[in-house]
């Protein structure tokens, strides 16, 4: 076991569905976890694919919830968006943008390759200071409720395994290989430095 609890960040694009689902599960399992989005805006599905609901990162979940209730309560109840927002607001007040967060983590888990790229770009563009390593792992999860739940469990299992290693940095490579074989999906993995 590492000597301190892992500081984990879960990142998706809007900090709504995938990262929040994982945030929910991980915090229930006692992890020191935070969640983020990397997009420039927070986007939620709208009445048509080309008409999403767009908010900025300052909008609270509560406000989004009220906004959507006002717009079309039935539609957003049916597609589960309201339910999701309801859950989110109980976890934290509003979505956070990864690029704006200067806190340090041991492990950043991204939910799709594009997000992984953005996280890497951001981390590499920061000035190096302490040279503390942060491992970034990408777990591809499709952006829907079911996949988010499955993905969150996978992330959780992964975090638990990493938390239980004696020497995370020395074993993470092998661990990820095992996970790849087990879950039959590839994980992108790299290390960056603060």
């Amino acid at each position, binding site marked *: *076991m*590492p*000597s*301190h609890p892992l500081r984990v960040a879960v990142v998706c694009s809007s900090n709504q569905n995938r990262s929040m689902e994982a945030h929910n599960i991980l915090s229930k399992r006692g992890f020191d976890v935070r969640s983020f989005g990397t997009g420039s805006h927070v986007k939620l599905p709208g009445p048509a694919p080309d008409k999403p609901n767009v908010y900025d990162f300052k909008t609270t979940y509560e406000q989004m919830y009220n906004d959507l209730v006002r717009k079309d309560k039935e539609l957003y109840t049916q597609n589960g968006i309201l339910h999701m927002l309801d859950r989110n607001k109980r976890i934290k007040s509003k979505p956070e943008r990864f690029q704006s967060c200067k806190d340090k983590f041991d492990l950043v888990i991204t939910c799709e390759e594009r997000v*992984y*790229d953005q996280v*890497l*770009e951001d981390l*590499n563009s920061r*000035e*190096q*200071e*302490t*040279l*503390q*390593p942060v*491992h970034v792992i990408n777990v591809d999860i499709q952006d829907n409720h079911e996949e988010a739940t499955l993905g969150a469990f996978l992330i959780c299992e992964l975090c638990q395994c990493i938390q239980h290693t004696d*020497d*995370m*940095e*020395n074993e*993470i*490579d092998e661990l*990820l*290989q095992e996970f*790849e074989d087990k879950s039959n999906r*590839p*994980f*992108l*993995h*790299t*290390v*960056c*430095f603060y």
Partner: protein
Amino acid sequence: NKCLYEDVFSLHFEVVDLLNQAALIPTDEKLAVLKQEMIAFQTDKSIEVRKFVIGFIEEACKRDNELLLRLIANLNMLLRDESVNVVKKAILTLTQLYKVTLQWLVRSKAVSDMQEACWDMVTQMKGDVLALLDSENDGVRTHAIKFTESLIITLSPRTSDSDVPKRQEGDISLDKVPKDHLYIRYDTLCEEGKTALEKLLKFMVHPAISSINLTTALGSLATIARQRPMFMSEVVQAYETLHANLPPTLAKSQVSSVRKNLKLHLVAVLKHPCSLEFQGQISTLLLDLGMPQSEITRSTPAPREQRKRPRHEPYTEGKKIKIEPALIEDDEDKEEPAPITAPKPPAAPVAQSAIDLTAEFLHPLLTSENVANLVLISMVYLPDVMPASFQATYTPVESAGTDAQIKHLARLMATQMTAAGIGPGEEDEAGKEDGTGEDSGGKDLLIKRKLPAVMVGQAISVVGGYAEKPTTDAPAAAVKRLPEPILPSAQTKIAGASGRKKVFRLADVIQPLSDTQTENLTSKAVNRILHSEKAIAQSGMSHVRVKLLSRLVTQFEGMMKGDVLEFILDDIRTRSDLAFSLLYQEYNTYLSQLPAGLLDSYDHCLYTLLSGLQEKPEQRDGLFTKLVLEAPIITESALDVIRRYCEDESRVYLGMTTLKELIIKRPSRQFQYLHVLLDLSSHEKEKVRTTALAFLKRMYEKDQLRDYIEKFALNYMQLLVHPNPPSLLFGADKDTEVAAPWTEETVRQCLFLYLSLLPLNHRLVHELASVYTEAIADIKRSVLRAIEQPIRGMGMNSPELLLLVENCPKGAETLVTRCLHILTDKVPPSPELVERVRDLYHKRVPDVRFLIPVINGLEKNEVIQALPKLIKLNPIVVKEVFNRLLGTQHGEGASSVSPLTPGDLLIALHNIDSTKCDMKSIIKATNLCFGEKNVYTSEVLAVVMQQLMEQSPLPMLLMRTVIQSLTMYPRLGGFVMNILSRLIVKQVWKYPKVWEGFVKCCQRTKPQSYSVLLQLPPAQLTSVFERCPEMREPLLQHVHSFTPHQVRAVTSLAQSLSFHLGIFSDSASFCLFFCVTTSAKADQWPPPRGPPHAKEVMFLPGFVCLFVCLSVCLSVSVQHNSKSYGQILMKFCGLGPPTPDHHQNLIISSLSHFQQTLKISSKSVHNFLSYVAH
């Protein structure tokens, strides 16, 4: 863990507390105080605490540089901490403190030894951390890389085109180090910086580098390139090399991660203004990595601006000079004087890197025709399966055939060629090196690098890497493997270049080797493969090595095989895969040579491995078993080893389990294996034998093996028929008939297996009987001793055993008897068994000994009938018989109920017809009875005597028994006197033997017996006196001691009685009798008054008196029908205390006695009784 957190928690409190206190003190003192408190924690048990201390050291030193002098040693200690997490933290801190120290020392005006020592230590620590690039821990390596990155930046000059992160603006770099510092040498630092870069570059091309290390290094290089553009060339080259040679150990997803990183960092480098020169290379790489051209263009800085700057920058020139030696793995940098500050004239186009040179040289050669040839040649070397990395990274070549692409291709090839140490660029290098004399060192390094690459199959990955462009990979592979095809290029080179080299022809330089040389080289080569175990294991290619070795070794004859086997046996545990591979290979060879092939080689291999394992002291890993079970064929000699293994007492179980597996899993030869196990079943070591027997018993349950085992067991037992033990029993080595006699051992040897099968298959018992009848006496005895356990195991209900008893072959009687004994030893015989034995006894073999074991199952009369025969047997046997009958066997819980009670038995003995049995045996038998005091108590004996006495005629031994009983139980005296008196009534003198005993008894029991003697008729009394004259005198005295009263009273009574009765024909004797009977009370004898008779009678003691009086009265009253005697009786009954029961009983028994002897009618008695009742 909770505890740990609490630890840290409490530590924080302490620290907060200390800080609060410190807030009141000026800063400097504050730190000093804190320092003391904090450093105390540096050896704390908790990792977190130690890390915290490191953090403190860093902060403290940054705040107050002077503290470095003290704390650097602590950091050094923590750098060697046992926890990697502490080490990592220490590396991070050193990364910071290195810069801090350098800056402080450079600025510091004062010179002190302390400072110098501090610098020395920091330098040494720097070296230590660089060495950690080879650490076994991935995380530590990662941190070491970052340290190296920072070190390189610090130890190189910052230039105007350097990217400087804001935070690091104040950081020290080489350009701020004065050249005249006392102990910090500018040159040395500069060299150190370059060495560090070389180290990093070298680290990156390690074939087994982990993906995280690689990623980290890629990032570090990008940082270096941007902050120190002078190194950009090396960086870009390194990227190129890496791109073409991704480590073969990376998994598919890791390849994509690394490529993503490569792309990211390439873009970062590209964005730097100094990338201008490398834009071509970088964008080609980016294209290969799948980046659209548009995006590349977007990331490319506008060329104009930067073109000016670098040109005027002296460092660009310096950089150029450095580029040339900075090859991927060149370490000849040191010879370069590093003339950074003294730049060469810009017009020095020659100074290019080897890759550049080679690329330039190749470019014109890549005509369509040449390329097509290269492709054709390299087709041969294409791997069978498409490598994963190729599959993952393949992108179609869009710009094929364009000049840019050909340039890129040339460059890629040049990279490969330079890496392989060939090509004009490399020769150019070599040319330079020649002068320095360090050429050999450089070459060695190259060889070192290439060797593992080839061994781990890097060649394949090279093809994979190149295969993105089908035209490219061909030449690359060709270059690497076969130098010949590029001969034309060498020629061209001669034409254009120095001409120092001549045309290379292979045939010119080689000579055929002699046989011994060949052999020597081969075996050395094999040895090298053999001993490179660890290195290969680390690269994950062990299976290739194993396969290679086994193939090689099986193909070549000679010492090699032995060497390899020996090598395997040195550490068979870890080298078992090689062992198996070798074995299979041998077998394969054998199969391929069928039908003429010989198994010799395979046999030798298997035999050596097995016996090696067998001789090893101990292993618990089951390797032996595994080897045996997985060997394709078990040869004779291998079977011998297995046998030896089984004979080892400490491993017998494992050995036999293996053998069992063999028997079960290899049915085609199972009997051969089974035979070994069977052989072991009569092994001289007990443990081996018992284990073998246990295994055989289990196997006996399997139908297909049953017959064989049975046959073997029977054959073995059949050996007992021989007069002498056959040689078979003494091991196979002596095949002459040994004239040694049978011993217990050898007999048992023949029986072990049989006897353990017997309880499983009762039918076999008949075979034993038939062998038994034929065997000699010695063997018979041994057999009888050996069969106890199995026969008991069969039990008396076994139908086969009953059948044996029933049939009892001639000559097997002793065997049957023994069986019977074993069966009934602890348990009473079953009715079936008794029936069988009885049958046998009566109809076929009238040997009474058969009956003994079942004696308690027989009827009473049967036992009595058999008694005469039984007691004639051996005394020990007789004793056993009696034990059984009397239930005094040793066996506890033998609750068999004997058909005879002890009394019955003794009586039966007395009644044995003396014609059937001699008196001596009977006497001995009775003595046995008397020996059992617990059984024959006084009560039992009394009953026996009573019954014997009542018999008519009297048994001959009656008096013997009486005397013996008396001797055993003297308290029977009274009872015996009674017996004696009654014997007188039975006219004992008519039986000479008994009479003799009677007298003897009287003799022994005097003076008690006087009263009895006085009852004898005179003739018999005389006869007594004749026999023992010494009796006469004491008897007379006895009579004389009567008082006159007594005499008178007795006499008168007797007279009157005799007068009336006439039963005492001799009055004198009656008188005597009376006197004797009354003697005990003589003193109290009162003077006769009133009716004297009755009164005196009242005082007579004992029942004898009573008896006499009663009989007298009775007879008188009966005979004379007189009431007066009846009245006497009445009075007698009415006087005195109430008569106790036993008196009444006696009266009654006396009455019945008199009724018989005096022939009194029962009517008279009845009258008398009714009279008495009144």
